């Protein structure tokens, strides 16, 4: 391990401030949650909480890959729904068939992401409109697969992925951490990842200095599709069914953006990381749970989530207080 020179922590802190804030926010909320939970801090409570949060964490991770390139993917929710519907057909039967099914679902998600990337990069269209249009396509496909809720999933596999390892650690958290380690860490440290960050902060300059911007963006969108597919797989593991639900697909897309913002990833691109996005997702989900332990009417949940979201993003505008020149508003 390389020794950090004196004073270097400042830069490390500046770079990871958003992630740290999200982690602290989540920690505080989770402590309030478990200390008021009737069952207290038990593996079961943690398991339920992490299972509920994992879905959003995966789409938040997906959104993060794209947002660091200063893009946006409004189709992550629909890719999740599509993969959910596909998994309810394919992830059944013998272990071999199940494995093939899982592979097919993941590949489908990857292909959806690649389609987004191809249209945005080579079709030179705006990410917002492109992913709005492709999300209609993905939802259409999902409706073809499951016009009415139904289907099944290999229950042994589903239970294995949603239970606890060694009776303590929730498997969904392990999968989440593994996904971060397998996809995010190598990506963010590779040339492609650096190029993705560069594209997000100064695309022209990055292009001029010969960074592989197109490949980096393509990889970002493709990986976003893959992460959403993992989310879709997990949704199937929880519900044992597939359902082409428009409202829930939309909700995942919107919440993924909220989670990314809470996680300190700048929508302007080039800032933040998937770890922050995951903590943002965990924090966002804990908001809903807090209502439950404080015995508030579930009717108030959407309002409460909205207000917290609004407060969280308003904190981000505190930087305005430091503006010395009015022109800095427009940067």
């Amino acid at each position, binding site marked *: 391990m390389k020794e950090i020179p004196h004073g270097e922590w400042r830069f490390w802190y500046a770079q990871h401030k958003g992630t740290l804030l999200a982690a602290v926010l989540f920690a505080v909320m989770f402590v309030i949650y478990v200390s008021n939970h009737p069952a207290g801090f038990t593996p079961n409570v943690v398991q339920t909480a992490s299972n509920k949060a994992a879905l959003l964490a995966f789409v938040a991770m997906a959104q993060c890959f794209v947002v660091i390139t200063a893009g946006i993917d409004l189709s992550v929710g629909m890719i999740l729904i599509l993969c959910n519907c596909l998994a309810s057909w394919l992830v059944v039967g013998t272990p071999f068939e199940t494995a093939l099914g899982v592979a097919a679902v993941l590949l489908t998600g990857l292909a959806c992401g690649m389609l987004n990337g191809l249209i945005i990069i080579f079709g030179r269209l705006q990410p917002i409109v492109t992913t709005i249009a492709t999300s209609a396509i993905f939802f*259409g496909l999902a409706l*073809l697969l499951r016009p009415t809720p139904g289907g099944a999933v290999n229950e042994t596999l589903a239970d294995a992925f949603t239970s606890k390892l060694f009776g303590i650690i929730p498997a969904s958290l392990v999968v989440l951490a593994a996904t971060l380690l397998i996809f995010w860490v190598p990506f963010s440290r590779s040339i492609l990842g650096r190029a993705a960050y560069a594209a997000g902060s100064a695309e022209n300059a990055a*292009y001029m200095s010969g960074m592989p911007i197109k490949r980096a963006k393509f990889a970002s969108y493709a990986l976003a599709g893959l992460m959403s597919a993992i989310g879709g797989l997990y949704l199937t593991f929880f519900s044992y069914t597939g359902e082409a639900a428009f409202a829930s697909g939309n909700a995942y897309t919107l919440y993924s953006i909220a989670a990314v913002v809470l996680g300190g990833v700048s*929508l302007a691109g080039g800032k933040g990381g998937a770890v922050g996005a995951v903590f943002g997702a965990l924090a966002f989900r804990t908001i809903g749970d807090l209502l439950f332990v404080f015995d508030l009417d579930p009717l108030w949940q959407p309002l*409460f989530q*909205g207000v917290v979201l609004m407060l969280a*993003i308003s904190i981000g505008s505190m930087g305005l207080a430091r503006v010395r020149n009015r022109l800095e508003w427009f940067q």
Partner: protein
Amino acid sequence: MSEDASLMRRSGLPARLRRVDPAVAIAFGCVLLLLLGGSIYSSNFLSPDYLLQQLKVASFLGVIATGMMMVILIGQIDLSVPWVVAAGAMMACAATAYGGVGSFLAIPFGILCGAVIGAVNGLAVAYLRIPSMIITLATNAVVQGLMVVYTGGFAPQDSASPAMRFLATGYVISPIPNGVLVWLVVGILAVFLLVRTTFGRSLYAIGNRERAAYMSGIDTRRITLLAFVISGALSALGGVLLAGYASKASQSMGDAYLLPSIAAVVLGGTHVLGGKGSYLGTVAGVILITLLQSILSVMQIEEAGRQLIYGVVIICMLLLYGRQKLV
């Protein structure tokens, strides 16, 4: 002299043609293609009754898209449309519960609620510099929360006032539905605002380069705030019309209008990053999307196929003329 004049006349026509925005031309071309394709399928498509019916359905989207266009022109986006539409409808219906006065004030009250939500969006975007994509998402969630608390999670009991029903389904000038007239008025006002006022010019200026607009003395924050107020008010008006059409408000009535309103504006040639676009294009986009949806439903294609075709058509059309310049 005469040679000069004929030369001018000859070069005049292409110049005028060249001034037509290719995006708008293509969008109207696609509308014609859709109508022709539809008329091959069924001869009803070219009948005045059908076309007026389509215009009536289009008027709801048209009113909402007008507000969306104002916001997109300054390079922002309004994702709070779904629940502002629902809130406008619900609040207008709620006002009718208060007797004659409430019924009289239903429409203005619904629009006012939308304008207030728009003002929250605008204040946050203009004065707190929060990206519109996030803050409008948050206001959407907050308004949803407020409406869920207000209605108790069910569809509200109050129904639309007679005036709202008349506005959406009645006829002042016999064959033309009132909804179309409302859209016409909104459209004329929008064109006037965009083309003839400093407010409209400022929208384009901010969309092109906000710093430059600020430096040239435009109060960019006030203009941004106003654009969001207009968007909120028009979304709520769309909701009021919809509630009048269905004679009541419902929970997810606005969901179906977010994506079409953005798509209509962008398909009409307005640049999604702002600064460029004409209202004529938005009209074309609105009619295009309404016709597309209508034809797909007349052909009895199932929802799945409709979504698929809808997405593919939008992407293909954007690939035709929405491409950005290379870096």
